[in-house]
C-alpha cells in the first residue's frame, strides 16, 4: 500500500479540497465562453461542407452566393494563402515519410470525408450566411472510397492520398517471443475492436476574430492550444507576431480542441473583410465532421507460465486514421508504448499501423491511444487469470510492474508504481457480494488496471512558463498561458502560488490563455498542464519568495532563512513581522523586481528506436485500477452498473476536489464509450449527428463513481503531483467487459458493450457469436 509522504505540516492550501473560483462563475452563468463574445459590426460565418465521403470537385462557383444580400465574403481554397500544413513525426520505423495534411484548410480538387470544409461564408446575419452557403454551386463527381483500414491497406484499394493509405507504422520487438511462447503453459488469443467515439463536449467549436487597433489579428476561441496562433499565421502567410489567440474558459475539450478548429477560418475571414467575425459550429456539424477517437482492431496473443507469469505477448494494432493525418501517428505511438499494460512482459512484439480511410478524421481524444489498448490487455489478463484459476487481483499482483522495471520500449520506471495496491484497494472497496435480485439476473464483478503517460513525449522538449508577481497592495497576480478546459487548471495554479507566497486564495488573480499577454504554457493536453505549468508557477513563486525575503531580512535584522511568508506578512522566528506591502515598497526603492517569470523544462531526450527498446519515451506514467459490479439481465442482455470504484495514484492531490472530479468525469466518459456511444458510419456517411442518436450517459445512467485518490507522494509535478486528466478514461470498458464475463461466462470483444451484442453472445438470438 502506498503511504502518502507527509508534506510540510505548515501547508495551508495545497492538498485541501478548496472550491474553485471558476466553478461558482460557471454555475452563476458569469463565465464568458467563446460563443458568448460579441462585437459591434460583427459578421456571422458558416462553413459549407462536403456531402460526400469521397468525390472530385468538378465545379465550384461562388458567384451567386457572393452577390446575395448581406454577404461580406465567400472563400474557397484558392483564397487561402497556404492551404495545407504538414509535419513529420520523428522516429517512425518505416519510411512512411512526412505526414500529409495535419491541417487541410479547405478542400481543393477532392473531398475525402463527409463534412469536409469546402467554402466559407461571412455575412451580416447567420441566416444570410447559411443561405449564401447553400447557394454556392458545387458539382461533385463521386469517387470510390475506402471505409475500413484493413481494406485501405489491401492492394488496389482506392487511395485516400496519392502517396498511399499507410499513415504510420510503429514496431516493438523485445526479447525472443517465439522461444517464450514455446515455454508458455497457457496461450490466450483475442481480437478486440473499438469504435469511433465523439468528444461530445458541452461547448461546440466556436470563436470570434477581429483585427485589433494595432493590426494584430486577434482570435478569441475555444481551444486547448493557444499556440495555434502560429498555424493561423502560416495559413495566412503573415508573421507569427501578428496573430494573437485568446483562450477563454472552455466547456470541455477532451482532445477535440487540440487540433485547429474554427480559428483558421476566422482569421481568413477577418483578414478578408476587416471586420469582426463569429463562427459557432452546430452540434450537428461537430458530430458530423469533427475528429473522433480512433477505432482500433487489436489482435493479442498472450502466453503465461502455469503459475501465472506472463512470458510473452504478440500484439497487432490497426487504427482507422480517417481522411487526414491530424495526430494519428502520435496516437498510435501511445498505443504502441502502452500495449502490454502495467505488467512485466519479458518478450513483446508490437506491430502498430494506422491507415487513411474516407471516414471522418480521427485524432486526439482523452487517453490518446493509451486507452483503446486497455480494453484489449485487461480482457487478456482476465482470460489468463480464469484459465489458470487465479482471481483478478492475484493474476495482476503476480505480473504488476514495479519501480525499476522497464516497459517494452526499454523505459525504466523511476517513480513509484502503485501496482498492485490500487487493484487490491478497488476490489476491496466493492464490499460484500450482493445476491441477484431475481431469477433472470446475474451479478458479476470486473477489474481493470491501466497506465497512462503524463507529459509530452520527451523528444518534443516540452516547456511551460509562468509569471507570478505582487501588486503594491500585497495582492498576487499569476499570468500563465494555460487554457482551462474545465479541469481546474487555473485554480490549481492559484493554489500553488498562494501556498508559496503566503496569501489567501481570494487574494490571487489569474490571467490565462492569451498568446500576447500571458507567458506561453503549451497545450492543455497529455495530462500535462498541472505537471508543466504547476512546476513553472511553483518555480516562479519560489524565486519571488526568495527575492522578497532577501529584501525583508535586513529590515527585520535576521537572516532570510529565518523568515516565512504568512497571511500577507513576512514573519520572523520571534514573532516579529512586516506587512508584505512594506517589503514591496522597499523592493521598489532598491530596484528589486516584485515578480518573476519562470520557465520549466521537462526532462528531455532524443527520439528512441522503439523496436530495439532503447529508452525513454514519456516523462512518467499515472497508474490506475477500476472495479465494477454489474447486474446482467439474462433475458435481454441489459447491463446495469451497480457499483463503480476508481483509484489512481496521483502522487499528490493539489486540490482533491478537482482530482475527484477528473476521476469521476473520466470514468463516466469511459463508461459512455464502453456501453453506449458509437459514431455509426455507412460508407463514410455519419448516421449519428444529433444527441438523439449519439447517446451519451446522463447522470441518471451511471452509478455514483467512488473515487479513491491515492497519494504516493511521488510524481514529477509540483509537490510530487502526477497528471490525472486522461488516466481515468482508460479502464471502464474493460472493467465492465470483465464483469460481464464474470457474471455470464461470455466475453464481449467489441465496443460498445450493447445489450444486443450480449444477447447475441448469450445465444438469445438463435446463434452464438
Amino acid at each position: 500500500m502506498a503511504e502518502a509522504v507527509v508534506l510540510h505540516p505548515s501547508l495551508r492550501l495545497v492538498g485541501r479540497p478548496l472550491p474553485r473560483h471558476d466553478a461558482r462563475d460557471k454555475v452563476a452563468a458569469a463565465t464568458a465562453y467563446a460563443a458568448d463574445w460579441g462585437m459591434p459590426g460583427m459578421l456571422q460565418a458558416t462553413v459549407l461542407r462536403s456531402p460526400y465521403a469521397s468525390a472530385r470537385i468538378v465545379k465550384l462557383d461562388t458567384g451567386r452566393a457572393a452577390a446575395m444580400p448581406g454577404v461580406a465574403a465567400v472563400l474557397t481554397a484558392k483564397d487561402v494563402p497556404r492551404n495545407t500544413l504538414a509535419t513529420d513525426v520523428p522516429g517512425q520505423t518505416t519510411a512512411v515519410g512526412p505526414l500529409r495534411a495535419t491541417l487541410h484548410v479547405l478542400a481543393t480538387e477532392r473531398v475525402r470525408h463527409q463534412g469536409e470544409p469546402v467554402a466559407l461564408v461571412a455575412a451580416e446575419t447567420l441566416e444570410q450566411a447559411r443561405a449564401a452557403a447553400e447557394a454556392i454551386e458545387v458539382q461533385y463527381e463521386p469517387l470510390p472510397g475506402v471505409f475500413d483500414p484493413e481494406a485501405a491497406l489491401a492492394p488496389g484499394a482506392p487511395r485516400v492520398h496519392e502517396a498511399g493509405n499507410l499513415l504510420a507504422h510503429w514496431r516493438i520487438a523485445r526479447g525472443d517471443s517465439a522461444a517464450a511462447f514455446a515455454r508458455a503453459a497457457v496461450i490466450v488469443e483475442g481480437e478486440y475492436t473499438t469504435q469511433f467515439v465523439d468528444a461530445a463536449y458541452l461547448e461546440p467549436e466556436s470563436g470570434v476574430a477581429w483585427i485589433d487597433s494595432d493590426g494584430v489579428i486577434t482570435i478569441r476561441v475555444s481551444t486547448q492550444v493557444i499556440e495555434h496562433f502560429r498555424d493561423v499565421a502560416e495559413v495566412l502567410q503573415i508573421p507569427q507576431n501578428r496573430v494573437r489567440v485568446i483562450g477563454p474558459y472552455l466547456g470541455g475539450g477532451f482532445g477535440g480542441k487540440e487540433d485547429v478548429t474554427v480559428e483558421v477560418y476566422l482569421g481568413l475571414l477577418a483578414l478578408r473583410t476587416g471586420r469582426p467575425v463569429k463562427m459557432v459550429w452546430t452540434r450537428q456539424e461537430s458530430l458530423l465532421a469533427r475528429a473522433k477517437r480512433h477505432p482500433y482492431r487489436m489482435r493479442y496473443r498472450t502466453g503465461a507460465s502455469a503459475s501465472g507469469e506472463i512470458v510473452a505477448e504478440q500484439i497487432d494494432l490497426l487504427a482507422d486514421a480517417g481522411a487526414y493525418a491530424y495526430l494519428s501517428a502520435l496516437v498510435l505511438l501511445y498505443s504502441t508504448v502502452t500495449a502490454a499494460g502495467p505488467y512485466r512482459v519479458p518478450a513483446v512484439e508490437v506491430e502498430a499501423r494506422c491507415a487513411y480511410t474516407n471516414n471522418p478524421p480521427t485524432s486526439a481524444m482523452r487517453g490518446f491511444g493509451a486507452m483503446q489498448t486497455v480494453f484489449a490487455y485487461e480482457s487478456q489478463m482476465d482470460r489468463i487469470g480464469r484459465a489458470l484459476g487465479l482471481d483478478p487481483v492475484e493474476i495482476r499482483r503476480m505480473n504488476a510492474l514495479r519501480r525499476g522495471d522497464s516497459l517494452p520500449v526499454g523505459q525504466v520506471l523511476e517513480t513509484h508504481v502503485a501496482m498492485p495496491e490500487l487493484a487490491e484497494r478497488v476490489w476491496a472497496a466493492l464490499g460484500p457480494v450482493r445476491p441477484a435480485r431475481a431469477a433472470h439476473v446475474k451479478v458479476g464483478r470486473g477489474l481493470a488496471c491501466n497506465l497512462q503517460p503524463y507529459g509530452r513525449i520527451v523528444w518534443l522538449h516540452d516547456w511551460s512558463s509562468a509569471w507570478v508577481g505582487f501588486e503594491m497592495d500585497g495582492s498576487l497576480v499569476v499570468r500563465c498561458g494555460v487554457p482551462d478546459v474545465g479541469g481546474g487548471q487555473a485554480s490549481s495554479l492559484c493554489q500553488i502560488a498562494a501556498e508559496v507566497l503566503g496569501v489567501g486564495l481570494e487574494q490571487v488573480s489569474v490571467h490565462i490563455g492569451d498568446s500576447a499577454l500571458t507567458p506561453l504554457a503549451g497545450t492543455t493536453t497529455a495530462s500535462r498542464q498541472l505537471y508543466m505549468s504547476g512546476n513553472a508557477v511553483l518555480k516562479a513563486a519560489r524565486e519571488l519568495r526568495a527575492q522578497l525575503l532577501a529584501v525583508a531580512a535586513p529590515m527585520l535584522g535576521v537572516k532570510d532563512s529565518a523568515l516565512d511568508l504568512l497571511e500577507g506578512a513576512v514573519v520572523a522566528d520571534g514573532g516579529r513581522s512586516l506587512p508584505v506591502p512594506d517589503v514591496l515598497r522597499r523592493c521598489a526603492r532598491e530596484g528589486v523586481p516584485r515578480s518573476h517569470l519562470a520557465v520549466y523544462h521537462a526532462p528531455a531526450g532524443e527520439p528512441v528506436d522503439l523496436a530495439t527498446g532503447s529508452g525513454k519515451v514519456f516523462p512518467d506514467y499515472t497508474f490506475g485500477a477500476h472495479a465494477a459490479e454489474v447486474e446482467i439481465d439474462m433475458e435481454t442482455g441489459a447491463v446495469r452498473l451497480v457499483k463503480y470504484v476508481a483509484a489512481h495514484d496521483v502522487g499528490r492531490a493539489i486540490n482533491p476536489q478537482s482530482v475527484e472530479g477528473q476521476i469521476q468525469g473520466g470514468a463516466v466518459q469511459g463508461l459512455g464509450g464502453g456501453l453506449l456511444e458509437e459514431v455509426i458510419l455507412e460508407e463514410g456517411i455519419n448516421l449519428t449527428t444529433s444527441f438523439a442518436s449519439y447517446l451519451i450517459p446522463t447522470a441518471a445512467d451511471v452509478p455514483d463513481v467512488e473515487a479513491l485518490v491515492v497519494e504516493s507522494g511521488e510524481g514529477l509535478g509540483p509537490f510530487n503531483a502526477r497528471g490525472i486528466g486522461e488516466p481515468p478514461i482508460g479502464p471502464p470498458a474493460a472493467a465492465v467487459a470483465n464483469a460481464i464475463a464474470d457474471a455470464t461466462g461470455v466475453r464481449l470483444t467489441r465496443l460498445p458493450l450493447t445489450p444486443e451484442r450480449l444477447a447475441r453472445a448469450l445465444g438469445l438470438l438463435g446463434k452464438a457469436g
Partner: protein
Amino acid sequence: MMRLPPFTYLAPRTLHAAATALAEHGADAMPVAGGTDLFPNMKRRQFEPKVLVGLRGIRELTGIRGRGREGMTLGAGTTLSAVAAHPEIVAHYGALATAAGLVSSPQLRNMGTLGGNVCVDTRCNYYNQSHEWRKAIGFCMKKDGDICLVAPGSSRCWAVSSSDTAPVLWSLGARVRLVGASGERVVPLEALYRDDGIQYLTKQPGELVADIVLPPADGWTSAYLKLRRRGSFDFPVLGVAVALRMDGDRVGEARIVLGAVASQPRPAPDAAAALAGERLTPELITRVADLAAGPSKPLDNTDFTHPYRKKMTRVFVARALRALAGLPGGGRAAEEVA
C-alpha cells in the same frame, strides 16, 4: 445551433378558432402544443409550416375529468407529467401513467402533451437528420425525396411509430374526440392510425385531437414495458402494452399492442385471444409471448436490429403478463431498458 425557419404564430383561444385557422391555411399550417418534437423537426426542416397554430392558450384542451369507475376524459393538452402523476390514472390505468412517465426527459414531459405524443411524428435513422445531411444522401420520400432509404424497392415509407402512449391507449380501449372546423367526431383510437410512415394519421389535416376518452377501468389492469438503449431518456424501439380484465382466476379479456415495430401501433390479436378464458400459467405466458411476437416486424431503421427487437417482444410480453399475474420475473417498466 440550428435555427427555426420563419413562421407566423397564431394563438387562438378556442378549439373552434384553432380548427378554423388550420382549415383556412390548409397544408401550410400545423398545430403545435408542447412543441417538444415539432420545433426540433422544424429546425431540421422535416416540417416547414408557414403558419403554426398554437394550442397552449386553449383552456378546453386541458384538464383530467372523471374517475376510473366511470371512465375518464383527458384533455389532449394535458402535459405528460400531469398524466404520469395523476392518482386516478396511476391507480386505474397504470400502463398509461407508466408510458407517459417514460417519454423523453422530465423537462420535456413538463412541456410535451398527451395529444402531442399520440400524434408524434414517425421516426427513421434516415429521416431524423438535418436538412444538409438529408440533402447529401438525396432525401427520402417522407420529406423532399422519392425513395425509401431503408427499403429502396419499396413504394411506401417505413418510418416507425414512436409514441409511448399510443399502444397503451389502444390496449385500454381509448377513444379520441376530433374537432374540425365543420364539426366533431369520436373515434376509437386505433382508427386514428394507418400503417404508413408518411400518412400515419387518418385524421383530416384540419382536425385536432381534443380529448382522449378512457372507458371505465372496472376490473382491468395494465402494464407497459419499453425498450431503448439509454435508460434515462430515449424514444422507444419497442413498446409493449398489455391490458387484462380478470374473471376470477381466469383472463376475461385481454389486449396486447406493440409500439415502435411498425408505422403505427401493432395489435397482437391472436395472442390476446389465446389468453381469454385461461389461467395465467407460465406455460400459457410463453405461448402467448410467442404469438405476440408474430406481428412484430420491425425494420432496421432504428437503434438495435430487428432480430433483437423481435426477440425482446417475446421477453417483454411475457414479463408484462407475469407482472399482471403477480408471478415472479415480471418486468418493471423503469428497468426494461437496456
